[in-house]
């Protein structure tokens, strides 16, 4: 490592741009600038110094702020692509084949391409997650690369600075004070202390500093982001995160997926609406009533100790709760959320055993679709035998009725009606809007009378042990970003030369407007010569030349 020797005699590490001891410019680039680049206090940024080995190259790549900004922009653009069409998570179809069809049907050729490229599940895709991870790596490496040298510089900075340093600050002042020389520095010290600065004095040099901690703001908020990202990554560790969903009909008890040994019963699903007349925006949306509340009243059960799956008798009741949106049921780290619902699934069907000619009914039977009976006996001795039940009738295959699913979307029955008139029994196939009599004309038919329905609740089960980590990450981030944004680091150097001339330089990392107020107060109180803002002068000159077409 080549050391850089400064005029003042101090040896600086390679890559330093402002001398660690006196602040004089060391590199050719620095020397050519009118105003010093104070962003990292002139410390050597590792990545800009070495570029030899492969480790150097990788490190330097991720340490570059340009690369970091590019990664931010790429992430931003990638995320926006996922909003063009709804993501798979939000469309309510289950299998991959159905999804492909959905995108193609609803969105045409664009949808087809969108799905084929995997853009319909963008945020879970590997490449997107890699982009986010790369951004995380960039944050970590860039912070280490810059934060550590910055910290060292701030800690070791000296009170007396080289003339070259002083003259190259944005705010400078030089001249005779308007009062006698002995008092000036004392006035300066006092004035700065009143302005709440931390004042250090060495002979005839003063360094007043305020708000150094705010320089660390960026690094702290980066730590917060990384902690947050770690929290998110931990979702993938088994046991840290459960994300399941279940559909539960009223009256059903079911094992809770992801929560061993627990069962949930849907006692009741409640849907309340407001009794208002539909108004403006509701009419526009085609909404007839506005939902006031949807709530599932549940009972949570637990198996006894040492039980195994399948042993669902003798469950112990744990608690009862009405799950509403914004009010999940919580138990031992698990939470149940009211997500969705479906109304009016057929539960019971009531039929009349009717004489086709006379339209007289011999009696009613009520079939509980969750528990159909083999034989229904009527009061007068007539019987209806249930030969077959097909909840979701989808057609015949070789004469046998088929069911597509187990959900009673399209219930169909094969009845054998045994009456005093027809003791051998008449067979009838009954579906919605369809009655078939395979043995020829029957005397009796099963006439549909009534249904009872029940509702179904869609619940989400969540268990997330990473939440505390996420909260900590968020808090650290907010602290970092607050101290970085709302406080600033101000420094004022004042020195009195042998002939009484006062030389002043000032720097802040942001909010020069307020800094100048401090300087104005100081100038007035200590009778200092007026300071100038070198950057504003430069800007104004620049604007002037632009306007008048003059060149300097």
């Amino acid at each position: 490592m080549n050391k850089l020797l400064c005029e003042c005699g101090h040896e600086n590490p390679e890559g330093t741009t402002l001398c660690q001891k006196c602040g004089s410019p060391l590199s050719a680039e620095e020397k050519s600038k009118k105003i010093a680049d104070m962003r990292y206090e002139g410390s050597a940024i590792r990545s800009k110094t070495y570029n030899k080995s492969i480790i150097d190259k990788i490190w330097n790549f991720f340490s570059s702020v340009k690369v970091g900004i590019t990664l931010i922009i790429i992430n931003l653009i990638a995320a926006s692509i996922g909003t063009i069409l709804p993501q798979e998570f939000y469309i309510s179809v289950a299998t991959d084949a159905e999804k492909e069809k959905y995108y193609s049907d609803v969105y045409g050729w664009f949808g087809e391409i969108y799905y084929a490229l995997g853009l319909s599940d963008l945020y879970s895709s590997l490449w997107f997650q890699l982009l986010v991870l790369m951004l995380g790596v960039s944050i970590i490496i860039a912070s280490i690369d810059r934060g550590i040298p910055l910290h060292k510089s701030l800690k070791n900075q000296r009170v007396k600075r080289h003339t070259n340093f002083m003259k190259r600050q944005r705010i400078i002042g030089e001249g005779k004070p308007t009062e006698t020389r002995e008092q000036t520095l004392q006035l300066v010290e006092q004035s700065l202390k009143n302005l709440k600065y931390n004042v250090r004095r060495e002979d005839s040099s003063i360094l007043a500093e305020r708000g150094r901690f705010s320089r660390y703001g960026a690094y702290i908020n980066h730590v917060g982001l990384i902690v947050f990202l770690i929290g998110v990554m931990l979702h993938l560790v088994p046991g840290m995160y459960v994300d399941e969903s279940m559909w539960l009909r009223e009256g059903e008890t079911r094992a809770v997926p992801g929560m061993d040994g627990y069962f949930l019963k849907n006692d009741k699903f409640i849907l309340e609406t407001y009794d208002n007349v539909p108004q403006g925006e509701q009419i526009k949306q085609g909404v007839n009533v506005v939902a006031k509340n949807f709530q599932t009243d549940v009972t949570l059960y637990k198996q006894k100790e040492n039980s195994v799956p399948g042993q669902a008798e003798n469950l112990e009741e744990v608690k009862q709760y009405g799950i509403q949106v914004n009010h999940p049921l919580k138990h031992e780290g698990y939470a149940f959320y009211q997500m969705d619902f479906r109304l009016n699934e057929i539960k019971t069907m009531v039929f009349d055993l009717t004489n086709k000619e006379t339209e007289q009914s011999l009696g009613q039977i009520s079939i509980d679709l969750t528990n159909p009976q083999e034989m229904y006996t009527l009061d007068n001795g007539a019987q209806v035998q249930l030969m077959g039940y097909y909840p979701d009738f989808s057609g015949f295959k070789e004469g046998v009725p088929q069911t597509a699913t187990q959900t009673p979307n399209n219930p169909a029955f094969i009845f054998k009606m045994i009456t005093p008139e027809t003791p051998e029994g008449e067979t009838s196939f009954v579906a919605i809007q369809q009655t078939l009599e395979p043995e020829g004309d029957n005397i009796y038919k099963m006439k549909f009378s009534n249904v009872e329905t029940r509702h179904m609740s869609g619940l989400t089960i969540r268990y997330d042990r990473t939440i505390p980590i996420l909260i900590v990450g968020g808090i650290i981030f907010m602290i970092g970003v607050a101290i970085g944004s709302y406080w600033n680091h101000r420094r004022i150097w004042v020195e009195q030369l042998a002939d009484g001339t006062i030389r002043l330089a000032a720097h802040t990392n942001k909010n020069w407007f307020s800094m100048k107020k401090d300087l104005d107060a100081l100038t007035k109180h200590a009778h200092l010569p007026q300071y100038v803002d070198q950057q504003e002068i430069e800007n104004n000159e620049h604007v002037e030349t632009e306007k008048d077409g003059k060149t300097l």
Partner: protein
Amino acid sequence: MTRGIILTILAIAIGYTVYAAVTKDKINIVQAGAQAPDFEVIDLHGEKHRLKDYEGKGVVLNFWGTWCEPCEREFPAMTRQYAEFKHQDVQIIAVNFAQSEFEVKKYVANMGMTFPVAIDKTKSVFTAYNIGPLPTSIFIKPDGTINRIITGEMTEGEIVQYMESIKPE
């Protein structure tokens, strides 16, 4: 030196994340080689079947439903092979997806299924084994570990082969 260590740690963290993300869905379902979760079901005749009690015997745990066509296709073959393997200490337990007793009994009678059939009314066993598509057959060895998990229809030849491989020595 330090940077090298930091880069390595980061590389490992990313590598693990990528690996975990890719294999996440596959880890969920109980896997071949793992211990089969113990369970207890009651069959249509009222008899209890507990997996632990079958230690020393092979068990085919089949998950099905009446609407499932592939299930319908493979049941006759399963019934036939059951007749053979029953005497070689391989048991088949068919667990139904919480349908009504009526439907299940009718179906079993029509298909002439001879092995124990149980209804998982609360889907507890289905959940414990994280079953998705039907049919799914879990072949459990006499020591209680899972030999293989088959989702989808099996040919008679496959049924023979798989049941053979969980036969006790």
